[in-house]
C-alpha cells in the first residue's frame, strides 16, 4: 500500500449527499477479477445524461479536474454496498483524499486499506470549500496526515481526527496482514482456549459437506 504523508492537490467537487457505492462504481464493472483499471467505471452512470451525451457539469468531464487528487463531497459518502471496487476506482482515477462531513463505515474502512485518506470536516467548513472551489480555477489544498490538518490557500487551517492505528498504518504504508501475523502466537492461544470453551466453533464441517 502506498503511504500517505502530505498531499497538495486540486479539489474536485461532487455536490451530492449520500453518494452510494453503486454510483461510485456501478455493478457492470464488478465482474473483473483484478483491482486495477477501474477508473473507466468511476461514476459511469453519472458521467452521461439520459440521452447518452456527456454531462459537462460532472467533475470527471471537466478538463480542470483531470489532475484532481482530492474529492470534496457531502454527508454519508460511500453508503451501501461493501464493494472495495469503489475506492479502487477512485484511486485509479487519481484520488488520494476524500473530504466530507461524514462517511459510511465500510467505505471509510476500505479507504485506509488502499492508501486513501478520508477526512471528516464539519459541514460549515465543507460549505466554505465548495464555495471556494466554485470560484477558483484549480483550487488546491494541502492535507497533512501527520499533523492532521487541512490547509487552505487562503491560510486557514482545519484539523481533523482519526484513530492512531489507522493513521500510523497509512503514514507508513504498512501491510495490515503482516502486522496481524506478528501476533500469531496470541491468535493460536486464543483458538486453543476457545476450542475448549466452545468446541462447536471449531468443528470441521468441510468433511461432512460432500456426504
Amino acid at each position, binding site marked *: 500500500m502506498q503511504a500517505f504523508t502530505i498531499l497538495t492537490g486540486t479539489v474536485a467537487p461532487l455536490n451530492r449527499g449520500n453518494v*452510494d457505492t453503486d454510483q461510485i462504481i456501478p455493478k457492470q464493472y464488478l465482474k473483473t*477479477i483484478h483491482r486495477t483499471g477501474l477508473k473507466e467505471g468511476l461514476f459511469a452512470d453519472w458521467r452521461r445524461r439520459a440521452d447518452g451525451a456527456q454531462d459537462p457539469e460532472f467533475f470527471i468531464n471537466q478538463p480542470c479536474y483531470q489532475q484532481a487528487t482530492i474529492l470534496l463531497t457531502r454527508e454519508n459518502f460511500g453508503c*451501501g454496498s*461493501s464493494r472495495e471496487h469503489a475506492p479502487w476506482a477512485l484511486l485509479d482515477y487519481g484520488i488520494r483524499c476524500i473530504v466530507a462531513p461524514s462517511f459510511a463505515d465500510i467505505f471509510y474502512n476500505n479507504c485506509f486499506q488502499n492508501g486513501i485518506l478520508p477526512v471528516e470536516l464539519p459541514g460549515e467548513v465543507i460549505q466554505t470549500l465548495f464555495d471556494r472551489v466554485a470560484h477558483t480555477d484549480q483550487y488546491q489544498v494541502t492535507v497533512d496526515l501527520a499533523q492532521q490538518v487541512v490547509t487552505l490557500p487562503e491560510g486557514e487551517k482545519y484539523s481533523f481526527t482519526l*484513530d492512531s492505528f489507522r493513521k500510523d498504518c497509512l503514514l507508513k504504508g504498512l501491510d495490515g496482514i503482516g*502486522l*496481524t501475523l506478528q*501476533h500469531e502466537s496470541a*491468535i493460536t492461544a486464543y483458538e486453543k482456549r476457545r476450542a475448549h470453551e466452545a468446541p462447536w466453533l471449531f468443528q470441521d*464441517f468441510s468433511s461432512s459437506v460432500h456426504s
Partner: protein
Amino acid sequence: MASKTLFEKIWDQHVVREEPDGTTLLYIDRHLVHEVTSPQAFEGLRLAGRRPRRPTAALAVPDHNVPTTDRSQGIADPMSALQISTLEGNCAEFGITYYGMEDIRQGIVHVIGPEQGLTLPGMTIVCGDSHTSTHGAFGALAFGIGTSEVEHVLATQCLVQKRPKTMEIRVEGTLPDYCSSKDVILAIIGQIGIGGGTGYVVEYTGSVIRSFSMEGRMTLCNMSIEAGARAGLVSPDELTVAYVKNRPLSPKEEVFQQAKSDWLALKTDPGARFDKVIELRGKDISPQVTWGTNPGMVTDVNGHVPDPASIPDEKLRMATERALAYMGLPGGIPICDIRVDRVFIGSCTNSRIEDLRVAARYVKGKHVAQSVKAMVVPGSGLVKRQAEGEGLDRIFREAGFEWREPGCSMCLAMNADVLTPGERCASTSNRNFEGRQGKGGRTHLVSPAMAAAAAVEGHFVDIRDWKMGDQ
C-alpha cells in the same frame, strides 16, 4: 460483574488482543465468500505466498452473477463465467468448501449460511458483502467487509477493529395485520435515516421483534446496513435454538446441548447501557413503500410522494427533486396511484420460504396484471425445492409469475435479470439506489405481500383493504 449488552458479550469473547487506544484484534469464527468480492483477495494471498489460516471456517458460493434461467446452458456472459470459475478454482487451490451452481445447496450466501446451520448464535461472521448483517438475526455479530479484509480474514482469521457504539431499537406493542418485519425495518430507516446507524451496532428489542419468525428477524437485520449500521442483532431465544437444531452443519447431541445453554445466555443484562436508544410503537407501523432513490425515502402505503414545493430545507428539497426526477414521479401523488411494470420477489432480504408462502397467499387464484412482468427468485436451491414441495411454484406460475433458479438476481442485476431504462419495479430487495436494478430502472422497496398485491393490480395497493384470494 458489570452489566453488558449482547453486543459487548460477543465482542469481548472474540478479543484476541487490544491496544491501549482500543484498536482490537477480533477473532472471526465464520467467513462466507462469494465470487464478486473475493478474486482479488485470493490473488493477494498468492502474491504474498500466504495460505488461509483456517480454510474450514469458510464457505464459498456463487450467487451474484448466476443465471436464474436454465443453467444447463452455462453462463452466457463470459465475464460472469470467468468470475465464477475463478472462485471455484480458488476454493480448490486453497481448500475452501464450495457449493457450485449445480448443487442443490447453492443460493444467496445470506440464505444458505443459516439454512445449512453454519450461522450460529454468538459467532463473529463476516463476508465481503454489506448484507452480512442478516446473520445478526441469530445473535451473531455479523458484518460486511471489503476485499482487503476478506484477504485479511483468510490469512489470519482475524480483523483489526475499533469497538463500535451500541444502539437499541425497541419496537413494543403489536404489529397491525398485514405488516411484516420488512415494513418495520423500512419504517425504522425512514425515522433514523440512512446514516442514522453509522458507527453503531444495533440490537433490536421489544415484543414486536420477539414475535418475528427467524425469517422475519433475518429480513430486519439484513437491512440494518441501509440505516448505516454495519451489524444488527436479535438475542437468541428458543425459536433461534429450534431453527438451528438439526441443520446439516450445526452441532449435534451433547455439543448442541452445551452450545444451547451458552446461546440462551446471550442477552443484554438488565441495567446495561446503550449509547443510543430509539423507540417505535408497533401499532403505528403501516405497510411501507419507498418512493425515492435511497431506502430512507419511504412512506406509508396510504401516504403520498412528498411535494418538494412544501419542503423548506433547501438541501432536502433539492435531494427530493432529484430523486423524484430520477423516479419519474410528480410530487404529491398518492402512493397507490403509482403503476409498476415489473415485480421482483427475491434477494437476501425476502427470498426465504416464509416470504414465498406469504406472497403466494396473495396471488393464489389471481393473475398478474396484463401490463406487469413478475418473477420469483427463491433464495436457495433448498428453498426452491421446499416451495415446490408445498405447491407454491404452481400458484406463482398459474398467476403468471416466472419461477426462477436461486441467486441474487435483480436485487443488483449483475446477471441477465435487469430493468430497462424507465421501467418501474416493485421489489422485495433492499436497495432502491439509482441504477441498482439496471441503468435508468426505478425501484420501489416493499414487503413480499405488497409486491404480490402490486403484481396483481398493476399498481401499489393498501393490502389492508385488499381482498385476498382463496386463503
